[in-house]
């Protein structure tokens, strides 16, 4: 370290000047003001300079650069920084300084540096065009990467690549550009699920936004908080809340001069969507709703006046909610009631708004049946379903999921809700659903899944590991008889708490899917998707 002291001092001096400028910009961000174009450009230049300095002075202690990089990456970090986040910049920097050998020579002439910079930019541009997300590690983001642009590769979504530092870096950059706070992961993650985010409810992303927030619309901030705290839960509820928030956003929107509504509004929505996915990963239904809105916005003709365009968009959103959710549930109830006969014993799991609606309608139509509600920790959503059904006057029984095989011989039908229906016929639903379907199949009890068509998605998944959601691990801590055993689970190094939210049921266990288009077997989901795409 001794011989590099001099250089160290130089580099620190170098960086402090730029640091000051950076701090100003960072402050501006903290205050929630939108950066002007010039400030954004300046920020970009600073970063490039930083990178170049790092490479030229090889060997400055990584810790210094780490701190600076960290401060650049996440401008408004609260003091209570979890160790996991600090860890992220370290591998990123390690990769950066591990960069190709050519840059290791000290004291290059200016001309050489310029030529090298040009060559780097060229190859970076080339590699950007044929970019492959998942497989890229340190070297590939640097110039020496051999770009494999021969076949267009589908990009993996960011939220299932949490253990890939390059993807994380990309996300951090994107969020910084959109001025959305980056939420940090919490606690030890079980290794099979280390590619997913795990957030704590005690640390909502809304804490990092100042009030009044000018970058993100307040109704979106409120929505994000409601999602992250679990106040709004359930696929339909989340989509409807999202659409209502977007209606408010559109209402308050005003086109800036020299911009077109159809393009600018879509750009305005992107940071909101990033923010919401930081609060809680988007569901398939929300994804479809967002796609629909973006399409509608970009289809607004340019000569349309602003008031007219806004009114039209509000109407579109209203009709989407009405058609795809409300009327769809009416249609599904109509078909489902045909399947409920007198004397039936129906098993339901958790709280699905659609299944509850069907049972209430069937009861009103004078069908004689009784319901068994199966529930599971830690969410205990079954209690809400039980409350609603008993209020109507339906005879109910309540069991926990561990009593399933005991109660199944009594059951004549199983009604399940779905979070999404995948293109290969698999049903994605609340964790525990596939268990119920499996045991029901073993007892030859028919399993009916009720799902609106707007929840159908083009994804394909065969297991519950690839893409899932990890909820707050602290939810599993429970106090019984005054003792809380798992209170200090973080101190035990080899202990991980896993709180999964979704699981995936294969189509062999599902006998029938009831959608607003009618009753279809599970294998016909791609047919419906095809028909829908033709319609649009």
């Amino acid at each position, binding site marked *: 370290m001794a011989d590099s002291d001099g250089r160290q001092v130089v580099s620190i001096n170098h960086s402090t000047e730029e640091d000051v400028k950076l701090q100003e910009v960072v402050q501006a961000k903290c205050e929630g003001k939108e950066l002007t174009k010039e400030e954004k450009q300046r920020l970009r230049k600073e970063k490039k300079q930083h990178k170049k300095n790092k490479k030229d002075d090889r060997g400055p202690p990584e810790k210094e650069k780490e701190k600076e990089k960290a401060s650049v990456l996440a401008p408004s970090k609260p003091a209570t920084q979890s160790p996991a986040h600090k860890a992220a910049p370290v591998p990123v920097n390690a990769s950066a300084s591990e960069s190709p050998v050519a840059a290791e020579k000290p004291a290059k002439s200016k001309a050489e540096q310029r030529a090298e910079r040009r060559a780097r930019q060229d190859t970076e541009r080339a590699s950007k065009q044929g970019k492959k997300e998942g497989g890229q590690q340190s070297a590939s983001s640097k110039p020496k990467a051999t770009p494999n642009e021969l076949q267009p590769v589908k990009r993996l979504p960011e939220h299932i690549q949490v253990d890939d530092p390059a993807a994380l870096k990309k996300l951090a950059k994107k969020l910084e550009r959109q001025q959305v706070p980056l939420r940090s992961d919490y606690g030890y993650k079980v290794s099979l699920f280390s590619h997913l985010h795990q957030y704590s409810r005690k640390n909502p992303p809304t804490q990092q936004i100042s009030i009044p927030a000018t970058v993100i619309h307040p109704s979106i901030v409120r929505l994000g908080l409601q999602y992250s705290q679990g106040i709004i839960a359930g696929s339909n509820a989340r989509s409807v809340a999202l659409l209502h928030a977007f209606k408010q956003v559109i209402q308050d929107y005003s086109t800036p001069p020299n911009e077109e509504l159809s393009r600018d509004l879509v750009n305005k929505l992107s940071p909101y969507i990033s923010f919401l996915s930081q609060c809680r990963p988007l569901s398939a239904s929300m994804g479809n709703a967002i796609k629909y809105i973006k399409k509608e916005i970009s289809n607004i003709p340019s000569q349309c006046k602003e008031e007219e365009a806004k009114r039209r968009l509000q109407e579109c959103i209203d009709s989407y909610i009405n058609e795809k959710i409300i009327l769809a549930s009416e249609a599904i109830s109509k078909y489902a009631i045909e*399947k409920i006969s007198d004397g039936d014993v129906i098993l339901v799991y958790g709280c699905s708004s659609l299944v509850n609606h069907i049972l209430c309608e069937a009861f009103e139509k004078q069908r004689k049946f009784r319901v068994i509600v199966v529930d599971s920790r830690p969410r205990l959503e079954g209690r809400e379903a039980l409350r609603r059904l008993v209020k109507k006057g339906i005879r109910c029984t309540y069991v926990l999921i561990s009593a399933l095989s005991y109660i199944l011989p009594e059951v004549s039908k199983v009604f399940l809700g779905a979070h999404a229906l995948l293109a290969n016929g698999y049903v994605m639903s609340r964790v525990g659903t596939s268990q119920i379907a499996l045991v029901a199949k073993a007892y030859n009890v028919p399993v*009916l899944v009720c799902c609106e068509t707007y929840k159908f998605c083009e994804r394909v998944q065969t297991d519950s590991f690839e893409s899932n959601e990890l909820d707050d691990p602290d939810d599993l801590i429970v106090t019984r008889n005054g003792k809380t055993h798992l209170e200090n689970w973080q101190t035990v190094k080899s202990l991980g708490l896993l709180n999964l939210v979704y699981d995936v049921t294969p189509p062999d266990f599902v*006998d*029938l899917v009831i959608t607003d*288009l009618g009753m*279809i*077997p599970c*294998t*016909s989901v791609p047919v*419906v998707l095809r028909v829908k795409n033709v319609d649009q």
Partner: protein
Amino acid sequence: MNKNNLVEYFRAQIREDPDVASAVAAIRSLLEFLKRDQSETILGLRENMTKAIHRLEETDSSVAVSSGGELFLRFISLTSLEHPDLSQCKNVMIERGELFLKKISLSRGKVGKLCHTFIKDGAKILTHSSSRVVLKVLENAAADNKRFTVYVTESQPDSAGKHMAQKLGKLNIPVMVVLDAAVGYIMEKVDLVIVGAEGVVESGGVINKIGTYQMAVCSKAHNKPFYVVSESFKFVRLYPLNQQDVPDRFKYKADILKTVKDLNQEHPMIDYTPPSLITLLFTDLGVLTPSAVSDELIKLYL
């Protein structure tokens, strides 16, 4: 044409041509009804047609009549009926009706042509009760100079299997009648099982004479292919989950439904075979797997 005339016409059709499928006879009667109908509006016409279909279902309670009638109605009203003159609309509908009738009269031949290639030389075939489509398939195979033997179940309570054996005997095909209870016993000897269908449901399962489900379960246990041959007008928009879920109006004969009070004392005439037990379905739309039936139905009905 009033309801009684319609039923008379229907019965006459079946008497004259015993080889015709009951659904085809029903559709011919419906076409005749359409030609003679006197209503003033399209809506009135549709209502009359629906009532006529119900009347025919009461006469012959098979699934095929119900599905054939509904498909007929859909097919003729699928065109845009925007002519201001009612008689012109009616002519368009009658034309389409004739077209539909022609198509379905040819369907049995198409099925026969498709299926007989699956019968290898020296095969032993098991079939259930009396199906005209299966007969056509075996006829085609025999005409192709293939040698095979056929086992037919007796199929009580109406001993339809014996009629089938007689018809096969006339075609010089070696045939043996077995008891319904002997299906498990004979299964190890046969190479494949071919049955007809009264109706093909949305899940890809079939509704057929009682005893078909048993045969399907046995053939699955012995790993023998279980083929179903059926025309496409038998595709129906039902989705039974189990045996109990099949509507009562299909399970029993029409006259029993009208006279008997307690249906629990009666024996059902049909049962439901779920799609997991069926290997392939041969229809005039092609050779389908059970999961493709839903695809076809969506195309037909949506």
